[in-house]
């Protein structure tokens, strides 16, 4: 048993840190996030060249076929650098497609495009009165003239404006089903949903009698459920790792500030109140690291408790990121609360990250279910 990154994994992570320090400093993050899509195609292609856009995808579509631990190791660095853009949306959608055994022919090309950093896709799950549980999805998919007909509304869809395909989760003959919609399909309308985290764009999507060919059906029934679950778990691990990287940045930045900022003729880091806040941050960050990497490992090994491990990570990391962010600002005082200080970028991502893929309350309920199942 060895619960730490292997030499290769550590090198991969170090390389990512170096690459992003160079290619994606916070000045660039701020420029990119001010654009409408928060996508910098040049940066994306460069990231794809590093292999990050298809890290867990099959080799035949240009992926690296690595596991979730390698994914987490790199995602942690993307979180530390606050990389803007559709990383999680692509990861979610591509994992879903790749997890479907008998997927339509067009999917190969799309996966290859995602791995190459040239194309994008996303998943449309949330509805106005649903939560992140797929069972709560109500949107009807009807069979019509040998094809499919879509009506309804999805909300807070990540990066839908740049996605070539939206993988829409709905109900077909009372079963869960996933269909692929193109933004320019007739009857599809997108509307920006400006939200707290400018580094990842959210949109509402309306579907008015959208007619689709039969080959747009990605999966239905148990196959759809399994693929969606696997994809959401993978994307959640990616998110937790990003949040972890952000927390690590906040901790280091706050400690550094506490060593240099002086008040009452002493570094503020010599005050017990500040020291103890930093110590609490350290505990939270290290614990979040344990939870995240274990979830990644359990997922990549298809351990029986993988779903539980992912929910535990999301519970812990959601709360820990918020608490680390709060303490980070408090240690900085007023300056940490300004637009100019990069803390705000992380703080807002922490907040958006709490919501994404289900908040701590949502996952706590999952963990309880799993505990009650395990303990007879």
């Amino acid at each position, binding site marked *: 048993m060895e619960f730490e990154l292997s030499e290769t994994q550590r090198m991969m992570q170090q390389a990512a840190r170096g690459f992003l320090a160079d290619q994606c400093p916070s000045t660039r993050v701020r420029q990119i996030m001010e654009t409408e899509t928060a996508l910098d195609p040049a940066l994306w292609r460069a990231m794809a060249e590093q292999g990050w856009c298809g890290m867990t995808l099959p080799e035949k579509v240009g992926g690296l076929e690595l596991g979730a631990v390698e994914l987490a190791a790199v995602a942690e660095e993307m979180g530390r650098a606050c990389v803007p853009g559709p990383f999680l949306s692509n990861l979610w959608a591509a994992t879903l497609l790749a997890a479907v055994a008998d997927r339509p022919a067009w999917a190969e090309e799309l996966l290859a495009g995602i791995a190459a950093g040239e194309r994008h896709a996303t998943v449309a799950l949330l509805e106005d009165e649903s939560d992140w549980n797929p069972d709560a999805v109500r949107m009807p998919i009807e069979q019509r003239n040998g094809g499919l007909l879509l009506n309804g509304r999805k*909300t807070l869809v990540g990066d839908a404006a740049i996605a070539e395909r939206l993988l829409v989760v709905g109900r077909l003959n009372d079963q869960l089903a996933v269909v692929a919609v193109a933004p320019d399909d007739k009857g599809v309308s997108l509307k920006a949903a*400006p939200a707290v985290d400018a580094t990842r764009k959210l949109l509402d999507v309306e579907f008015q009698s959208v007619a689709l060919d039969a080959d747009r059906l990605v999966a239905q029934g148990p196959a759809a459920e399994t693929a969606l679950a696997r994809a959401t778990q993978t994307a959640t691990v990616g998110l937790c790792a990003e949040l972890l990287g952000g927390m690590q940045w906040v901790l280091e930045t706050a400690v550094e500030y506490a060593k240099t900022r002086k*008040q*009452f003729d002493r570094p503020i880091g010599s005050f017990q109140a500040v020291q103890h806040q930093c110590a609490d941050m350290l505990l939270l960050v290290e614990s979040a690291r344990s939870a995240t990497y274990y979830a990644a490992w359990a997922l990549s090994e298809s351990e029986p408790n993988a779903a539980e491990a992912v929910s535990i990570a999301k519970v812990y990391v959601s709360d820990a990121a918020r608490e680390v962010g709060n303490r980070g600002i*408090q240690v900085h005082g007023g300056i940490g609360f300004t637009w100019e200080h990069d803390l705000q970028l992380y703080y807002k991502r922490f907040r958006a990250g709490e919501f994404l893929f289900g908040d701590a309350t949502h996952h706590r309920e999952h963990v309880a279910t799993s505990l009650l199942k395990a303990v007879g």
Partner: protein
Amino acid sequence: MDLNPTPEEQRFRDELRAWLEANMPEPWSGSPTGSESDPAYVAYLRDWQKRLFEGGWAGISWPKQYGGRGCSFIEQAIFHEEMARAGAPEQIGVIGLSLVGPTIIAVGTDEQKKRYLPPLLSGDEIWCQGFSEPNAGSDLASLSTLAVREGDDFVINGQKIWTSFAHFADFCLLLVRTDTEAPKHRGITCLLVDMHTPGIEVRPLRMMSGDSAFNEVFFTDVRVPASQVLGQINQGWTVAITALLNERANLGAGLYAMFRRNLEALVAHTRRERRNGRPLCEDPLVRQKLGQMHAELEVFRLNNLRALTRINKTGMPGPEGSIQKLYWSEFNQRMTRAALEILGPQAQRHDFDGGRWIYGYLRSRGNTIEAGTSEIQRNILAQRVLELPKSY
């Protein structure tokens, strides 16, 4: 103990309520969160302050001779309650009304009182407060903005930060260093400075919540007549303490009204919005959070009422006011967090209720820093109320 209003207090309330019915302005219809960086909104608030003043409703607890109404602190609180109940606009001159005015009343000369208090009350002259500096935050007494005596003037050079309202304020209650040799608490002087004096430059500071409620203020060879000293030269530290005690004591009632509006808006959402087949207000977890927030908010209201009773007897706020500051700043952080948890992911949108929920959440992070950090408030409570030995 009697929480019923006295006959005077009841009369006061009735009279105010009648006046408000006749004099409430149209609700503000411009920028949704009503930011003070919008000049039209500032003009709207100035008009409202003028109307209050002319109706006799400014400076409720101030002596009549300075344009106040000469009422008790209790009536002052009733005023805020009624303003909130009526949904009246906020008071633009809050720094002047809650902090500068009481300080001038406490230590100003008769001339200063006559000159500054009436236009402060009428909203004709807005005040800001120049205390903090980039290197003097929690350690306020280490401030280094320098005032050098030249003839009848002080010449000021330096920089202030976190100066609310500075971009449209007419005057500033400014702390400067006038003796660089003395121990740091003994070389500070408080000046009443005209913000239109040449050499003053105001730059807005953008906050993470997106607005610019604070400013940096730069002073370059700014000449201020020595007659503008408030209190005594080199005794500015005690003036500052008076001002800060008043700040903590006077914020409560207005904040309660804001918190209550937020809670009511949140409750309305929980009735209207459904998740997985039922309204949010029927979810036991949501109900626990609503119950907790309402309980905590009521305790805040009650703490304020007890503090008012005390101040009404002593005539002066004391260090125990730090309890209120600690309480509301941490409560508002819990409250804005609970709101996001209850409302769910839609609440992160800038176009959901005009973005008020996510703005409120972000803005609340400043609460435990501005007007004295929570760490400083706890130090005050420990050392000045509980009389524990000084820690540094």
